[in-house]
Protein backbone atom coordinates (compact mmCIF):
# COMPACT_ATOMS: atom_id res chain seq x y z
CA UNK A 1 0.00 0.00 0.00
CA UNK A 2 2.20 2.84 -1.24
CA UNK A 3 1.60 5.84 -3.46
CA UNK A 4 3.80 6.62 -6.41
CA UNK A 5 6.34 8.09 -6.83
CA UNK A 6 8.07 6.39 -3.91
CA UNK A 7 10.50 8.02 -1.48
CA UNK A 8 13.62 7.37 -3.55
CA UNK A 9 12.03 8.71 -6.77
CA UNK A 10 10.75 11.83 -4.98
CA UNK A 11 14.15 12.58 -3.53
CA UNK A 12 15.83 12.10 -6.90
CA UNK A 13 13.40 14.51 -8.57
CA UNK A 14 13.76 17.08 -5.79
CA UNK A 15 17.54 16.84 -6.08
CA UNK A 16 17.37 17.43 -9.82
CA UNK A 17 15.30 20.57 -9.22
CA UNK A 18 17.82 21.77 -6.63
CA UNK A 19 20.84 21.22 -8.87
CA UNK A 20 19.35 22.36 -12.20
CA UNK A 21 17.07 25.21 -11.13
CA UNK A 22 17.95 26.49 -7.66
CA UNK A 23 21.71 26.11 -7.39
CA UNK A 24 22.48 28.59 -10.22
CA UNK A 25 20.37 31.19 -8.37
CA UNK A 26 22.25 30.85 -5.06
CA UNK A 27 24.85 33.50 -4.16
CA UNK A 28 28.39 32.06 -4.41
CA UNK A 29 28.88 31.94 -0.62
CA UNK A 30 25.96 29.50 -0.35
CA UNK A 31 26.89 27.26 -3.27
CA UNK A 32 28.64 24.81 -0.92
CA UNK A 33 25.50 24.63 1.25
CA UNK A 34 23.47 23.80 -1.86
CA UNK A 35 25.87 21.04 -2.83
CA UNK A 36 25.75 19.58 0.70
CA UNK A 37 21.94 19.49 0.55
CA UNK A 38 22.13 17.73 -2.84
CA UNK A 39 24.61 15.19 -1.44
CA UNK A 40 22.40 14.48 1.59
CA UNK A 41 19.41 13.94 -0.72
CA UNK A 42 21.39 11.56 -2.95
CA UNK A 43 22.44 9.44 0.05
CA UNK A 44 18.88 9.40 1.39
CA UNK A 45 17.51 8.41 -2.05
CA UNK A 46 19.94 5.51 -2.37
CA UNK A 47 19.16 4.35 1.17
CA UNK A 48 15.41 4.57 0.60
CA UNK A 49 15.79 2.45 -2.52
CA UNK A 50 17.99 -0.19 -0.93
CA UNK A 51 15.31 -2.47 0.51
CA UNK A 52 15.57 -4.97 3.33
CA UNK A 53 17.37 -7.84 1.61
CA UNK A 54 20.89 -6.54 2.23
CA UNK A 55 20.26 -5.97 5.95
CA UNK A 56 18.81 -9.46 6.27
CA UNK A 57 21.94 -10.80 4.55
CA UNK A 58 24.11 -8.84 7.01
CA UNK A 59 22.32 -10.45 9.95
CA UNK A 60 22.73 -13.92 8.44
CA UNK A 61 26.42 -13.39 7.69
CA UNK A 62 27.03 -12.07 11.21
CA UNK A 63 25.16 -14.95 12.78
CA UNK A 64 27.38 -17.37 10.86
CA UNK A 65 30.50 -15.69 12.30
CA UNK A 66 29.45 -15.61 15.93
CA UNK A 67 29.28 -18.39 18.47
CA UNK A 68 25.70 -19.09 19.58
CA UNK A 69 24.10 -16.67 17.13
CA UNK A 70 20.50 -17.45 18.10
CA UNK A 71 17.62 -17.39 15.64
CA UNK A 72 17.96 -14.88 12.80
CA UNK A 73 15.31 -16.39 10.53
CA UNK A 74 12.30 -14.74 12.16
CA UNK A 75 11.18 -11.13 11.79
CA UNK A 76 13.26 -9.88 14.72
CA UNK A 77 16.52 -9.90 12.75
CA UNK A 78 16.32 -6.13 12.16
CA UNK A 79 16.23 -5.53 15.88
CA UNK A 80 19.08 -7.99 16.38
CA UNK A 81 21.47 -6.51 13.79
CA UNK A 82 22.99 -3.88 16.14
CA UNK A 83 23.36 -6.52 18.85
CA UNK A 84 25.13 -8.89 16.46
CA UNK A 85 27.48 -6.11 15.34
CA UNK A 86 28.19 -5.21 18.97
CA UNK A 87 29.11 -8.82 19.66
CA UNK A 88 31.40 -8.98 16.62
CA UNK A 89 33.09 -5.75 17.74
CA UNK A 90 33.72 -7.31 21.17
CA UNK A 91 35.09 -10.52 19.64
CA UNK A 92 37.53 -8.49 17.52
CA UNK A 93 38.68 -6.35 20.45
CA UNK A 94 39.19 -9.43 22.64
CA UNK A 95 41.53 -10.90 20.02
CA UNK A 96 39.28 -13.83 19.18
CA UNK A 97 39.42 -13.10 15.42
CA UNK A 98 43.18 -12.73 15.11
CA UNK A 99 44.12 -15.84 13.18
CA UNK A 100 43.14 -18.72 10.96
CA UNK A 101 39.83 -19.31 9.20
CA UNK A 102 38.03 -17.04 11.66
CA UNK A 103 40.26 -14.12 10.69
CA UNK A 104 39.61 -14.62 6.98
CA UNK A 105 35.85 -15.00 7.50
CA UNK A 106 35.62 -11.85 9.61
CA UNK A 107 37.78 -9.89 7.14
CA UNK A 108 35.46 -11.04 4.32
CA UNK A 109 32.41 -9.82 6.22
CA UNK A 110 34.03 -6.46 7.03
CA UNK A 111 35.03 -5.88 3.39
CA UNK A 112 31.50 -6.78 2.27
CA UNK A 113 29.89 -4.50 4.88
CA UNK A 114 32.06 -1.53 3.89
CA UNK A 115 31.15 -1.97 0.21
CA UNK A 116 27.44 -2.18 1.08
CA UNK A 117 27.63 1.07 3.10
CA UNK A 118 29.81 2.80 0.52
CA UNK A 119 27.19 2.08 -2.16
CA UNK A 120 24.89 4.33 -0.12
CA UNK A 121 27.28 6.97 1.22
CA UNK A 122 29.68 7.45 -1.70
CA UNK A 123 29.50 5.03 -4.65
CA UNK A 124 32.31 6.97 -6.39
CA UNK A 125 34.73 5.70 -3.75
CA UNK A 126 33.89 2.02 -4.40
CA UNK A 127 36.93 -0.10 -5.25
CA UNK A 128 37.24 -1.22 -8.86
CA UNK A 129 35.64 -4.65 -9.31
Amino acid at each position, binding site marked *: MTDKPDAAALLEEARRALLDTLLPLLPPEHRYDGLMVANAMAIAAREAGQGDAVLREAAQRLAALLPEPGDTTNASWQARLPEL*ETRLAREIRAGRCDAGIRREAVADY*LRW*SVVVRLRLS*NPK*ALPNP
Partner: protein
Amino acid sequence: MTIDLAADAAARERLSRFIARAAGARRAALSNIAPLRGGAIQENWSLDIDLEGGALAGRYALVLRTDAPSRVAASHGRAQEFALLRLARAAGVTVPEPLWLCGDPAVLGRAFYLMRRMPGVAAGHRIVKDPSLGGPRHALAERLGQELARIHAVTPQTLARLLPGQSFDFLAPSSANPGLDRVQLYRRYLDDLADPHPVLEWGLRWLELHSRPAGEITLVHQDFRTGNYLVDERGLTAILDWEFCAWGDPMSDIGWFCARCWRFGAVDREAGGIAARAPFYRGYEAACGRRIDPAAVHYWEVAAHVRWAVIALQQAARHLSGAQRSLELALTGRIVPELELEILRLIDSPEGRAA
Protein backbone atom coordinates in the same frame (compact mmCIF):
# COMPACT_ATOMS: atom_id res chain seq x y z
CA MET B 1 27.76 33.38 23.70
CA THR B 2 28.96 34.55 20.31
CA ILE B 3 30.14 38.13 19.98
CA ASP B 4 29.56 39.68 16.60
CA LEU B 5 32.49 42.08 16.30
CA ALA B 6 31.12 43.50 13.07
CA ALA B 7 27.84 44.56 14.72
CA ASP B 8 28.86 45.18 18.36
CA ALA B 9 30.44 48.63 18.70
CA ALA B 10 30.94 48.26 22.46
CA ALA B 11 32.90 45.03 21.96
CA ARG B 12 35.04 46.74 19.31
CA GLU B 13 35.77 49.57 21.75
CA ARG B 14 36.81 47.11 24.50
CA LEU B 15 39.01 45.27 21.96
CA SER B 16 40.60 48.52 20.80
CA ARG B 17 41.44 49.49 24.40
CA PHE B 18 42.89 46.03 25.09
CA ILE B 19 45.14 46.20 22.01
CA ALA B 20 46.34 49.74 22.78
CA ARG B 21 47.27 48.70 26.33
CA ALA B 22 48.95 45.43 25.24
CA ALA B 23 50.92 47.20 22.50
CA GLY B 24 51.90 50.16 24.66
CA ALA B 25 50.17 52.52 22.22
CA ARG B 26 48.17 55.68 22.85
CA ARG B 27 45.36 54.49 20.64
CA ALA B 28 44.47 51.49 18.43
CA ALA B 29 42.07 52.20 15.57
CA LEU B 30 40.33 49.08 14.20
CA SER B 31 39.13 48.70 10.62
CA ASN B 32 38.08 46.14 8.01
CA ILE B 33 36.65 43.71 10.57
CA ALA B 34 35.30 40.59 8.85
CA PRO B 35 34.60 37.01 9.92
CA LEU B 36 36.89 34.30 8.51
CA ARG B 37 35.55 30.89 7.75
CA GLY B 38 37.28 28.78 10.39
CA GLY B 39 36.84 25.29 11.70
CA ALA B 40 34.14 23.98 13.99
CA ILE B 41 36.42 24.60 16.96
CA GLN B 42 37.29 28.29 16.86
CA GLU B 43 36.05 31.55 15.44
CA ASN B 44 38.41 33.70 13.44
CA TRP B 45 38.15 37.36 12.51
CA SER B 46 40.22 39.35 10.09
CA LEU B 47 40.97 42.97 11.05
CA ASP B 48 43.44 45.81 10.54
CA ILE B 49 44.74 48.11 13.26
CA ASP B 50 46.54 51.45 13.29
CA LEU B 51 48.63 51.92 16.43
CA GLU B 52 49.28 55.53 17.43
CA GLY B 53 52.26 56.13 19.68
CA GLY B 54 54.56 53.66 21.40
CA ALA B 55 57.37 51.52 20.04
CA LEU B 56 55.05 49.51 17.77
CA ALA B 57 53.32 52.45 16.08
CA GLY B 58 52.10 51.57 12.61
CA ARG B 59 49.55 49.60 10.63
CA TYR B 60 49.06 45.86 11.15
CA ALA B 61 47.02 43.20 9.32
CA LEU B 62 45.78 40.77 11.98
CA VAL B 63 43.75 37.67 12.68
CA LEU B 64 41.82 37.38 15.94
CA ARG B 65 41.20 33.82 17.09
CA THR B 66 38.74 33.03 19.86
CA ASP B 67 37.26 29.85 21.30
CA ALA B 68 34.00 28.82 19.65
CA PRO B 69 31.07 28.06 21.97
CA SER B 70 31.39 24.31 21.36
CA ARG B 71 34.89 22.92 21.65
CA VAL B 72 36.30 19.52 20.82
CA ALA B 73 37.49 18.06 24.11
CA ALA B 74 40.89 17.03 22.71
CA SER B 75 41.79 20.51 21.44
CA HIS B 76 43.74 23.17 23.30
CA GLY B 77 42.24 26.52 24.25
CA ARG B 78 43.52 29.79 22.85
CA ALA B 79 45.99 30.49 25.68
CA GLN B 80 47.72 27.15 25.06
CA GLU B 81 47.66 27.68 21.31
CA PHE B 82 49.26 31.11 21.76
CA ALA B 83 52.08 29.48 23.76
CA LEU B 84 52.48 26.82 21.05
CA LEU B 85 52.76 29.48 18.33
CA ARG B 86 55.51 31.20 20.32
CA LEU B 87 57.25 27.86 20.75
CA ALA B 88 56.95 27.03 17.03
CA ARG B 89 58.41 30.43 16.16
CA ALA B 90 61.29 29.88 18.56
CA ALA B 91 61.91 26.51 16.88
CA GLY B 92 62.12 28.17 13.45
CA VAL B 93 58.79 26.95 12.09
CA THR B 94 57.02 29.30 9.65
CA VAL B 95 53.99 30.49 11.64
CA PRO B 96 52.03 33.75 11.91
CA GLU B 97 53.68 35.90 14.58
CA PRO B 98 51.57 35.70 17.76
CA LEU B 99 51.14 39.20 19.21
CA TRP B 100 48.78 39.56 22.17
CA LEU B 101 46.80 37.10 24.28
CA CYS B 102 43.76 38.15 26.31
CA GLY B 103 42.43 35.80 28.99
CA ASP B 104 40.03 38.36 30.49
CA PRO B 105 36.44 37.35 29.61
CA ALA B 106 35.28 40.93 30.23
CA VAL B 107 36.71 41.96 26.84
CA LEU B 108 35.07 39.56 24.37
CA GLY B 109 33.39 36.98 26.59
CA ARG B 110 36.06 34.33 25.91
CA ALA B 111 39.83 34.04 25.68
CA PHE B 112 41.32 35.22 22.38
CA TYR B 113 44.61 36.21 20.84
CA LEU B 114 45.82 38.28 17.92
CA MET B 115 48.42 37.23 15.39
CA ARG B 116 49.72 38.67 12.15
CA ARG B 117 47.59 37.87 9.10
CA MET B 118 49.61 35.95 6.54
CA PRO B 119 48.73 36.05 2.84
CA GLY B 120 47.64 32.90 1.08
CA VAL B 121 45.13 30.13 0.63
CA ALA B 122 44.63 27.13 2.93
CA ALA B 123 41.68 25.29 1.31
CA GLY B 124 42.97 21.81 0.49
CA HIS B 125 40.81 21.16 -2.56
CA ARG B 126 41.97 24.46 -4.12
CA ILE B 127 45.67 23.85 -3.45
CA VAL B 128 45.47 20.33 -4.89
CA LYS B 129 43.58 21.45 -8.05
CA ASP B 130 45.33 24.74 -8.80
CA PRO B 131 49.05 24.32 -9.59
CA SER B 132 49.55 28.12 -9.65
CA LEU B 133 49.26 28.03 -5.83
CA GLY B 134 52.22 27.13 -3.67
CA GLY B 135 54.96 27.37 -6.30
CA PRO B 136 56.70 24.30 -7.76
CA ARG B 137 55.16 21.33 -6.02
CA HIS B 138 58.30 19.30 -5.33
CA ALA B 139 59.80 22.39 -3.68
CA LEU B 140 56.65 22.92 -1.61
CA ALA B 141 56.70 19.28 -0.48
CA GLU B 142 60.39 19.52 0.41
CA ARG B 143 59.78 22.75 2.35
CA LEU B 144 56.90 21.15 4.26
CA GLY B 145 59.22 18.28 5.16
CA GLN B 146 61.73 20.80 6.56
CA GLU B 147 59.02 22.59 8.55
CA LEU B 148 57.84 19.31 10.07
CA ALA B 149 61.43 18.39 10.96
CA ARG B 150 61.72 21.68 12.88
CA ILE B 151 58.56 20.86 14.84
CA HIS B 152 60.02 17.44 15.67
CA ALA B 153 63.24 19.02 16.88
CA VAL B 154 61.21 20.16 19.93
CA THR B 155 61.57 17.50 22.61
CA PRO B 156 60.92 17.46 26.35
CA GLN B 157 64.67 18.15 26.68
CA THR B 158 64.96 21.10 24.24
CA LEU B 159 61.70 22.75 25.37
CA ALA B 160 63.02 24.78 28.29
CA ARG B 161 65.86 26.20 26.19
CA LEU B 162 63.52 27.29 23.38
CA LEU B 163 61.02 29.15 25.53
CA PRO B 164 62.25 29.59 29.12
CA GLY B 165 59.58 30.22 31.73
CA GLN B 166 56.60 29.03 29.70
CA SER B 167 54.86 25.93 31.04
CA PHE B 168 53.80 23.26 28.56
CA ASP B 169 52.31 20.92 31.16
CA PHE B 170 49.09 20.99 29.13
CA LEU B 171 50.67 18.87 26.37
CA ALA B 172 49.36 15.31 26.61
CA PRO B 173 52.21 13.03 27.75
CA SER B 174 53.26 9.97 25.82
CA SER B 175 54.38 6.53 26.90
CA ALA B 176 57.32 4.92 25.10
CA ASN B 177 54.72 3.32 22.80
CA PRO B 178 52.49 6.12 21.47
CA GLY B 179 50.62 3.70 19.17
CA LEU B 180 49.27 1.79 22.16
CA ASP B 181 48.32 5.08 23.85
CA ARG B 182 46.23 5.93 20.82
CA VAL B 183 44.56 2.51 20.70
CA GLN B 184 43.41 2.94 24.31
CA LEU B 185 42.21 6.50 23.67
CA TYR B 186 40.22 5.66 20.54
CA ARG B 187 38.64 2.62 22.21
CA ARG B 188 37.46 4.91 25.00
CA TYR B 189 36.04 7.32 22.43
CA LEU B 190 34.25 4.48 20.59
CA ASP B 191 32.80 3.21 23.87
CA ASP B 192 31.23 6.65 24.41
CA LEU B 193 29.38 6.40 21.10
CA ALA B 194 26.09 4.60 20.71
CA ASP B 195 26.72 2.22 17.81
CA PRO B 196 29.22 -0.61 17.29
CA HIS B 197 31.98 -0.14 14.67
CA PRO B 198 33.53 -3.54 13.88
CA VAL B 199 35.80 -2.23 11.09
CA LEU B 200 37.32 0.39 13.39
CA GLU B 201 37.74 -2.30 16.06
CA TRP B 202 39.54 -4.37 13.41
CA GLY B 203 41.85 -1.44 12.70
CA LEU B 204 42.45 -0.86 16.42
CA ARG B 205 43.24 -4.51 17.03
CA TRP B 206 45.77 -4.43 14.16
CA LEU B 207 47.30 -1.26 15.63
CA GLU B 208 47.50 -2.96 19.02
CA LEU B 209 49.20 -6.09 17.63
CA HIS B 210 51.66 -4.17 15.44
CA SER B 211 52.59 -1.32 17.77
CA ARG B 212 56.26 -0.74 18.51
CA PRO B 213 58.03 1.68 20.82
CA ALA B 214 58.77 5.01 19.15
CA GLY B 215 62.37 5.73 18.15
CA GLU B 216 62.02 8.92 20.19
CA ILE B 217 59.32 11.13 21.64
CA THR B 218 59.00 14.65 20.20
CA LEU B 219 56.45 17.40 19.86
CA VAL B 220 53.85 16.29 17.30
CA HIS B 221 51.52 18.73 15.55
CA GLN B 222 48.77 16.13 15.06
CA ASP B 223 47.01 18.01 12.26
CA PHE B 224 49.91 18.72 9.86
CA ARG B 225 48.24 18.24 6.48
CA THR B 226 47.10 19.91 3.29
CA GLY B 227 44.30 22.28 4.34
CA ASN B 228 46.22 23.43 7.42
CA TYR B 229 49.01 25.43 5.81
CA LEU B 230 48.87 28.64 3.81
CA VAL B 231 50.43 29.09 0.40
CA ASP B 232 50.57 32.00 -2.00
CA GLU B 233 51.69 31.85 -5.65
CA ARG B 234 55.35 31.60 -4.59
CA GLY B 235 55.21 29.01 -1.84
CA LEU B 236 54.50 28.35 1.82
CA THR B 237 53.53 31.30 4.03
CA ALA B 238 52.45 29.63 7.31
CA ILE B 239 51.77 26.38 9.17
CA LEU B 240 48.40 26.70 10.92
CA ASP B 241 46.11 24.93 13.42
CA TRP B 242 48.23 24.09 16.44
CA GLU B 243 45.38 23.12 18.75
CA PHE B 244 46.03 19.35 18.76
CA CYS B 245 49.77 19.38 19.63
CA ALA B 246 51.02 16.70 22.02
CA TRP B 247 54.07 14.56 22.76
CA GLY B 248 54.29 11.51 20.51
CA ASP B 249 55.98 9.54 17.75
CA PRO B 250 57.25 11.90 15.03
CA MET B 251 56.33 9.26 12.43
CA SER B 252 52.67 9.83 13.33
CA ASP B 253 52.76 13.30 11.72
CA ILE B 254 54.34 11.85 8.55
CA GLY B 255 51.58 9.23 8.35
CA TRP B 256 48.87 11.86 8.89
CA PHE B 257 50.31 14.13 6.16
CA CYS B 258 50.55 11.29 3.62
CA ALA B 259 47.28 9.51 4.52
CA ARG B 260 45.01 9.03 1.51
CA CYS B 261 42.14 10.82 3.28
CA TRP B 262 44.15 14.09 3.18
CA ARG B 263 45.05 14.00 -0.52
CA PHE B 264 41.80 15.75 -1.53
CA GLY B 265 41.16 13.35 -4.39
CA ALA B 266 44.69 13.52 -5.85
CA VAL B 267 45.37 10.02 -4.51
CA ASP B 268 48.41 9.41 -6.74
CA ARG B 269 50.29 12.33 -5.18
CA GLU B 270 50.93 10.56 -1.92
CA ALA B 271 52.43 13.51 -0.03
CA GLY B 272 49.29 15.47 0.82
CA GLY B 273 47.90 15.44 -2.73
CA ILE B 274 50.64 17.83 -3.85
CA ALA B 275 53.69 15.67 -4.72
CA ALA B 276 55.27 12.24 -4.47
CA ARG B 277 56.58 11.18 -1.07
CA ALA B 278 60.23 11.46 -2.15
CA PRO B 279 60.66 15.27 -1.99
CA PHE B 280 58.68 15.48 1.27
CA TYR B 281 60.77 12.73 2.87
CA ARG B 282 63.98 14.27 1.45
CA GLY B 283 63.22 17.67 2.96
CA TYR B 284 62.41 16.09 6.30
CA GLU B 285 65.45 13.82 6.49
CA ALA B 286 67.87 16.52 5.34
CA ALA B 287 66.60 18.96 7.96
CA CYS B 288 66.76 16.69 10.99
CA GLY B 289 69.05 13.78 10.19
CA ARG B 290 66.36 11.36 11.35
CA ARG B 291 65.58 8.53 8.88
CA ILE B 292 61.98 7.94 7.93
CA ASP B 293 60.99 4.32 8.51
CA PRO B 294 58.42 3.34 5.81
CA ALA B 295 56.98 0.58 8.02
CA ALA B 296 56.35 3.07 10.82
CA VAL B 297 54.73 5.49 8.36
CA HIS B 298 52.47 2.68 7.09
CA TYR B 299 51.47 1.93 10.70
CA TRP B 300 50.63 5.59 11.30
CA GLU B 301 48.63 5.80 8.07
CA VAL B 302 46.37 3.05 9.41
CA ALA B 303 46.19 5.01 12.68
CA ALA B 304 45.41 8.21 10.74
CA HIS B 305 42.31 6.73 9.11
CA VAL B 306 41.13 5.25 12.41
CA ARG B 307 41.64 8.62 14.10
CA TRP B 308 39.80 10.59 11.42
CA ALA B 309 36.95 8.05 11.45
CA VAL B 310 36.62 8.35 15.25
CA ILE B 311 36.64 12.18 15.01
CA ALA B 312 34.05 12.02 12.19
CA LEU B 313 31.82 9.85 14.40
CA GLN B 314 32.23 12.34 17.28
CA GLN B 315 31.31 15.22 14.99
CA ALA B 316 28.24 13.37 13.70
CA ALA B 317 27.30 12.58 17.32
CA ARG B 318 27.30 16.31 18.11
CA HIS B 319 24.69 16.72 15.40
CA LEU B 320 22.71 13.61 16.38
CA SER B 321 22.57 14.60 20.07
CA GLY B 322 21.26 18.04 19.17
CA ALA B 323 24.27 19.75 20.78
CA GLN B 324 25.11 21.36 17.43
CA ARG B 325 22.67 20.82 14.56
CA SER B 326 24.56 21.07 11.29
CA LEU B 327 24.29 19.47 7.86
CA GLU B 328 28.08 19.55 7.56
CA LEU B 329 28.50 17.58 10.81
CA ALA B 330 25.72 15.18 9.78
CA LEU B 331 27.40 14.44 6.42
CA THR B 332 30.74 13.96 8.16
CA GLY B 333 29.25 10.82 9.71
CA ARG B 334 28.79 9.46 6.20
CA ILE B 335 32.48 9.60 5.25
CA VAL B 336 33.28 6.79 7.70
CA PRO B 337 32.89 3.91 5.18
CA GLU B 338 35.49 5.52 2.87
CA LEU B 339 37.95 5.69 5.74
CA GLU B 340 37.15 2.11 6.72
CA LEU B 341 37.77 0.93 3.16
CA GLU B 342 41.26 2.43 3.34
CA ILE B 343 41.90 0.87 6.78
CA LEU B 344 41.08 -2.58 5.38
CA ARG B 345 43.14 -1.94 2.23
CA LEU B 346 46.22 -0.84 4.22
CA ILE B 347 45.97 -3.82 6.59
CA ASP B 348 45.58 -6.24 3.64
CA SER B 349 48.43 -4.67 1.65
CA PRO B 350 51.82 -6.41 1.45
CA GLU B 351 53.22 -3.84 3.95
CA GLY B 352 50.35 -4.55 6.33
CA ARG B 353 50.76 -8.29 6.12
CA ALA B 354 54.53 -8.11 6.49
CA ALA B 355 54.42 -5.80 9.52
